[in-house]
């Protein structure tokens, strides 16, 4: 039975009327229906913030919504068909149903029982919940959590490793292996030299992990679970699209069933970055999957089209970052040749831009495009720009790093990670190992690049050993001492003189005024989120993804308030976030780098057509 007084249902109708639902009903020739219902606890009280997911047989996407304050959930109109429906909340057993949806609708009520076994709850937890739950009542233990945080989560979410329990020797074996293993997971050569920073902390970290994730399981009272979403954070429709790998079948343990824990990315690592174009297609960069240089997702159907370009050796060119410019050209970095690559969606042809013979510096891993249509990327100790008209590359060298607090010149050529072009066409490049952000003035008569150095992190539990290692060992976004802030990826506000930077290790968002160079830092609401990238929409709202937190985080600079949108998959391990400004509020897109999915958030707002009632 429909409950027409439901605000959620009215909003769904309103959004349908506004033409915002693009991935469900429109393509069906068999009609649509409404799935809705209520969720209550065993004592009969309504449960808000429970994620309810629906998947129809024969389609490649899953739709999820939250229950509201009354414990009510309602999906937007969905295709008729055979459905699986499941409801999940950390700490509770899942509710499940299967049914046929016809025109009209289906009403399903779930009663969720709490889980009393810590091991079973742990499997449901995100990486940020794991780290918060580790014993840390003493400064020494808190320091070890920071060591794990800054030495491990750059490559994987904490929930993947901490769902294991090994003794000290076992953790030591794992750290030895990880110290020699790249982010791609390729096995090290027998003579590989381990990462010095990881090995420096190896003994004390394995001792700590052997104690807290070893023979004795955490108790129920140790678990620090996030509060379920409430209010605004529940007013969202989440669509997760499969991004199938042609080299291996989709795996049933894809993070959708939280009771199975965090999956291996062996099963599904694929998309690294995404970018929505003006037609609503989503372009995908991929540095893992064979026979795919870039891919295009059609959100209206879920269809994924792979495009492949081979290098001179016949190898599939790899991409890591992707941007669609103002005229619809798709830019990415050619990871094989370290050049820029352009794809024209109209002709479906790639064009590679070789560097001039005397240009030694190559195109790095992240890309943006300036107002003139010229692509920029991070590069060796600076930034690199292509003049798209002439095909000439220009490299901009960052100023020398100052030594002292962090190992600088003596630790070699410093790497860069994130890049964003501000509204004046200045490039902003992060240097995670140096805790600084470099401004590159690209005008012919512009100033030399200048570095904005972040204030040192104050961490009471840090020891002299940490300060010494910070001075003498090379740090970076993936391995650093607990004293690191590690600005990782960034995004400029298209309508303001501001660049927003994700401080990966410090768990903060940094606002940099592009004119005054003033810095203001904001602590994220959830510890150990590990903010990786940012995006700024047309309204100046900032979006942040955390590699260690299965959520996308919104920050409104006007109110200085964060809102977290929890995601329906465990082990999302997101490395990029983007916005589609065609709607208001804009939709948000992100790739799950561990699980081969791409996610879209659409927001349920009041005031739309038909939204006249409330519960």
């Amino acid at each position: 039975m429909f409950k027409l007084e439901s605000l959620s249902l009215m909003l769904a109708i309103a959004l349908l009327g506004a033409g915002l639902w693009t991935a469900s009903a429109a393509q069906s020739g068999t009609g649509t229906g409404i799935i809705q219902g209520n969720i209550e606890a065993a004592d009969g009280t309504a449960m808000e913030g429970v994620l309810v997911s629906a998947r129809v047989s024969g389609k490649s996407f899953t739709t999820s919504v939250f229950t509201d304050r009354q414990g009510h959930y309602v999906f937007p109109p969905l295709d008729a068909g055979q459905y699986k429906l499941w409801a999940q909340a950390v700490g509770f057993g899942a509710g499940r149903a299967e049914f046929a949806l016809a025109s009209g609708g289906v009403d399903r009520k779930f009663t969720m029982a709490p889980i009393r076994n810590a091991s079973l709850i742990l499997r449901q937890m995100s990486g940020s919940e794991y780290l918060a739950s580790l014993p840390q009542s003493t400064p020494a233990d808190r320091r070890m959590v920071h060591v794990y945080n800054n030495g491990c989560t750059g490559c994987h979410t904490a929930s993947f490793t901490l769902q294991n329990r090994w003794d000290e020797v076992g953790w030591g074996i794992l750290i030895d292996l990880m110290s020699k293993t790249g982010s791609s997971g390729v096995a090290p050569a027998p003579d590989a030299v381990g990462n010095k920073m990881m090995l420096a902390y190896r003994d004390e970290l394995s001792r700590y992990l052997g104690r807290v994730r070893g023979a004795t399981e955490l108790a129920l009272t140790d678990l620090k679970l996030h509060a379920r979403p409430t209010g605004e954070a529940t007013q969202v429709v989440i669509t997760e699209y499969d991004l199938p790998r042609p080299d291996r079948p989709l795996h049933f343990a894809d993070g959708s069933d939280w009771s199975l824990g965090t999956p291996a990315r062996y099963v599904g690592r694929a998309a690294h970055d995404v970018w929505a174009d003006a037609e609503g297609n989503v372009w995908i960069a991929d540095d893992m999957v064979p026979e795919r240089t870039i891919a295009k997702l059609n959100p209206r159907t879920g269809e994924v089209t792979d495009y492949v370009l081979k290098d001179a050796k016949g190898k599939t060119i790899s991409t890591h970052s992707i941007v669609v410019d103002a005229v619809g050209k798709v830019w990415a970095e050619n990871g094989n040749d370290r050049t820029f690559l352009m794809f024209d969606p109209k002709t479906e042809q790639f064009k590679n831009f070789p560097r001039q013979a005397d240009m030694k510096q190559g195109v790095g891993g992240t890309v943006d495009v300036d107002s003139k249509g010229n692509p920029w990327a991070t590069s060796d100790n600076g930034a690199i720009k292509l003049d798209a008209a002439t095909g000439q590359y220009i490299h901009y060298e960052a100023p020398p790093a100052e030594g002292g607090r962090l190992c600088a010149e003596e630790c070699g050529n410093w790497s860069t990670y994130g890049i964003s072009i501000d509204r004046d066409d200045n490039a902003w490049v992060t240097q995670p190992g140096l805790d600084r952000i470099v401004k590159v003035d690209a005008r012919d008569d512009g100033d030399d690049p200048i570095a904005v150095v972040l204030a040192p992190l104050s961490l009471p539990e840090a020891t002299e050993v940490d300060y010494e290692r910070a001075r003498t060992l090379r740090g970076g976004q993936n391995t650093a001492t607990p004293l690191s802030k590690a600005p990782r990826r960034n995004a400029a506000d298209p309508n303001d003189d501001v660049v927003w930077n994700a401080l990966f290790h410090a768990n903060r968002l940094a606002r940099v005024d592009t004119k005054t160079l003033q810095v203001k830092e904001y602590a994220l609401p959830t510890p150990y989120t590990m903010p990786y990238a940012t995006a700024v929409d047309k309204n100046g709202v900032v979006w942040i993804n955390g590699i260690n937190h299965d959520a996308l985080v919104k920050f409104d600079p006007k109110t200085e308030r964060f809102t977290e949108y929890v995601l329906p998959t465990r082990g999302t391990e997101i490395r990029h976030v983007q916005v589609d400004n065609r709607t208001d509020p804009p939709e948000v897109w992100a790739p799950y780098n561990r699980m081969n999915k791409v996610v879209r958030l659409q927001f349920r707002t009041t005031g739309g057509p038909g939204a006249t009632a409330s519960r």
Partner: protein
Amino acid sequence: MSVKSHWMLVGTCVLLLLPVAASAQMRASGRIAGVVEDTWVAMLPDVTSGVADAGDTLFVIPTQASQVSQVGTVETVARGEAWFYQRCALCHLDRIVKDDTTAPVGPKLNGVLKDASPARETAVRERIQRGTLRMPGFRYGFTAEQFEELMAYLETL
């Protein structure tokens, strides 16, 4: 010589030359340098029961093949496959990055339990739970049910 064959040769030499006492000593030290075991054929360890305390429940993981049912339903095997990918794939499956496939750091497990005798299955169970010089022991990380699901999947390889 390929990287893979080099590792196999080293592994074989290690298994032939290392006395049990030396292995135990190296494991206790926690420092593993260049030691490779690349075959499961020579495993005949002692058989004991592994016990893991998992929160409110005490899980007793059987280490002898005779202690458990050999029946592997489709659902059981599927869940075992999930545990295999989650806990084992990093070291025991090829790594694919774009067009390049590289051998895993550990041995591939294809056929490890194919037509295995009870003694061999017991040895495999013991190996997974105790670990090796290069592999952490999984005696704490699986419930008894999960472990049987993993074994059911390994039997299909």
